[in-house]
């Protein structure tokens, strides 16, 4: 199995943990993994991304344009920014909730994440928009966004990782007191979850 996965969002949204969990789950299956992520200034509310590559024969963690199997968009506009990386027929899993940049609030111009979503709908054949707003309310924490998207991507089959794989990784890498909440987030989009 060879997979190129891109996670993107706004600094502080939890992309780093999500990419760690994907990597851990793949490693558990004995697969080689390489990844790269934004660390530094951009983590303060700037655009951030992670590239994750799974499979044999990897040389570098960076993904070439048009070769990503999956994009996990933590924010619609950031998903659009990374879209050139998605391959034809690739899967995009995107959170419905936009984050207004300070620059947009200031200029009064506003920022319409709906525009971003409708662009994604036009461009991406396999698009999954997750109503993270409702989901976070149901689960009772805004902090589970990353696991929600991870779960949705896993259920779509595009990650090549199962719920079980990711569950294991959560148990190993997340403090115990958050297990319950995160496991609920993971299962939230599962077809069998009522």
């Amino acid at each position, binding site marked *: 199995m060879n997979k190129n996965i891109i996670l993107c969002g706004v600094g502080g949204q939890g992309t780093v943990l999500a990419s760690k969990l994907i990597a851990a789950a793949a490693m558990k299956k004995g697969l080689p993994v*390489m990844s790269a*992520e934004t660390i530094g*200034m951009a983590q*303060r*509310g700037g655009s951030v991304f992670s590239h994750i590559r799974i499979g044999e024969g990897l040389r*570098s963690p960076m993904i070439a344009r048009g070769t990503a199997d999956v994009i996990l968009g933590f924010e619609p506009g950031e998903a659009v920014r990374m879209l050139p990386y998605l391959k034809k027929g690739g899967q995009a899993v995107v959170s419905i909730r936009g984050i207004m940049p300070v620059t947009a609030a200031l200029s009064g111009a506003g920022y319409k994440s709906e525009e971003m979503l409708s662009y994604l709908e036009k*461009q991406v054949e396999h698009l999954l928009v997750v109503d993270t707003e409702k989901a976070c309310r149901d689960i009772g924490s805004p902090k589970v966004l990353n696991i929600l998207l991870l779960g949705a991507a896993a259920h779509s089959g595009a990650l090549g990782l199962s719920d079980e794989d990711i569950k294991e990784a959560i148990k190993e890498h997340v403090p115990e007191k958050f297990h319950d909440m995160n496991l609920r987030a993971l299962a939230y989009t599962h077809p069998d979850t009522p």
Partner: protein
Amino acid sequence: MHKEFLMGNEAIALGTIAAGVNLVSGYPGTPSSEVLETVAKRRTSDIYVEWSVNEKAAMEVAAGAAYTGARSMVTMKQVGLNVASDPLMSLEYIGVKGGMVVLAADDPGPISSQTEQDTRHFSAFSKLPCFDPSDPQEAYEMVQEAFEYSEKYETPVFLRPTTRVCHGYASITVKDEAEYKVHNFEGFTKDSGRWVIFPRLSYQNHIKIEARNQTLADDFSEYSRNRIYQACRKNVLLKKGIASGGISFTYALETLEEAGMAKLFKVSTPHPFPERLALSFLEGLTEVLCIEELDPVIERELTYICGKYHLPVKIYGKLTGHVKNAGENSRDSVQENIMQFLGLASDSPNMVSADSALSTDSMPSLPVRPPVLCAGCPHRASFCAVKAAMKGKKTIFCGDIGCYTLGNAMPLDMVDTCLCMGAGLGIAQGVGHMEPDTTCFAFVGDSTFFASAITGVINAVYNQADMTLVILDNSTTAMTGHQPHPGTGRTMMGEIVQKINIEAVLRGIGLKVVEIVNPLDYEASVECVKRVAWEPGVKAIIFKAPCIALTKPSGSLAVSPDKCINCRKCIRELGCPALVISEKQVSIDSSLCTGCSLCSQICPVNAICPPAEKDKGGVCHE
């Protein structure tokens, strides 16, 4: 041996531990900080680790350890090397007894730095050998080899990873603890002819260093990480080759690999350059493209070798305009460069095909998202207070390096200058001497104060400057990932020690006016600035409130829509990311707001308050 998923910096740290290091010192700086942090976390009991007060101190501590025969490492980012260059330049003339690795991480882009300087040049300048890893596994092994070379040649050596290697992760094979080397050392032996630098000794040692680097260049030609990858049989007659190093090498290799399209030269030791190996690479070629980041180091070396040996090979790269000369390379840019050089179309069947899902270019305009101070960051409050207090006055706000550099963004717009660590103080003084009618401010964080501002304060007092020093004390080194410093009372060895008190330091230097205020008390802060800035000479305000990323938020506030007159003063003045406009109404994003209350103190109609009070329709701000 076992497998671990490690960040490049963590891999370097584990390699260092496996090499039997005895002491690691450093100063935080992106992208280098995780090396020392990981050594501290994973160290065996006999390793000493410290965050030093700055890179110069760190370099000297590591040198002292190496004088005793211990193995030492010092870590920093590339600009930190400028601070440490004084001891380093001399240290090369003295040499070391135990292995000493100088880890200086470069930042092509730059992604989190002021410059795109190239440590490979520093290596040639200081005459230290340089190791340049391409991925975490190689960095893990290379750092262990670097210690061996350092000891064999009795010189400190550079390990120079770049951001994508430092912060790239890979599942790699590492040693078990039982396989770690134990490095025993003899201790310092007095010998003033060896350890005391004098012009005569420097002259003699200079001769030895030049000779040694000749030997080392030959030695490096045999070093297995400098390597020629032959083109596959069907392309073997092609007279074109690629030379590369660092992360760019991995992009080049991936581009070429499947097809074995051209001969490839990996340079892992840019200095001293493996000349003999380069000669065998150049043999039979007529054109070479050099792919590297930052400066054209490999390109110049190959050009020099071609001149020296009268080789009919054209060398292309940054100097010839074939590769862009600033910013980082990407997987895609390298592929494009190579395709063009080889005269291939980018949809050649041998290439990773860029079959993007995008069909048109009708992309909506993307949100501009520069980094900003966190919601609830106390620096925002400090900047607002100074701005309000100085409204209408002729001022200059000299900034510095840290999270508070982000105070430059609109709407705060409170950083008029920023140069390097600690420079704001000197610049404020220089401006003040030339423009006595300007009220000069210098802003500096607590960690930066200890690292490089104290001499600036002494300079100001001694030379009768007129300026206000503003210390933004959030009790941590926030930008680089919250490391402790002398004011926090914690060390990297986990000890609780006496805190060095900034106010006492300032008073010790002779400042008569030093006031401490909580910036989140807006009115008191504005009053304080008005009072202090008016005083003659050098005076200081210490804005003291912890970094919000390290404190538990006190619960979010909300805008009461029936009270809000939609004047947008909060948005216009603060630029807090939690303040947003939804459906033309100002509101607060509860997932971001920390309840710092700054906006509620600025709102002219008390429309911002805790949600409970809002529901009760009670009074918001007292």
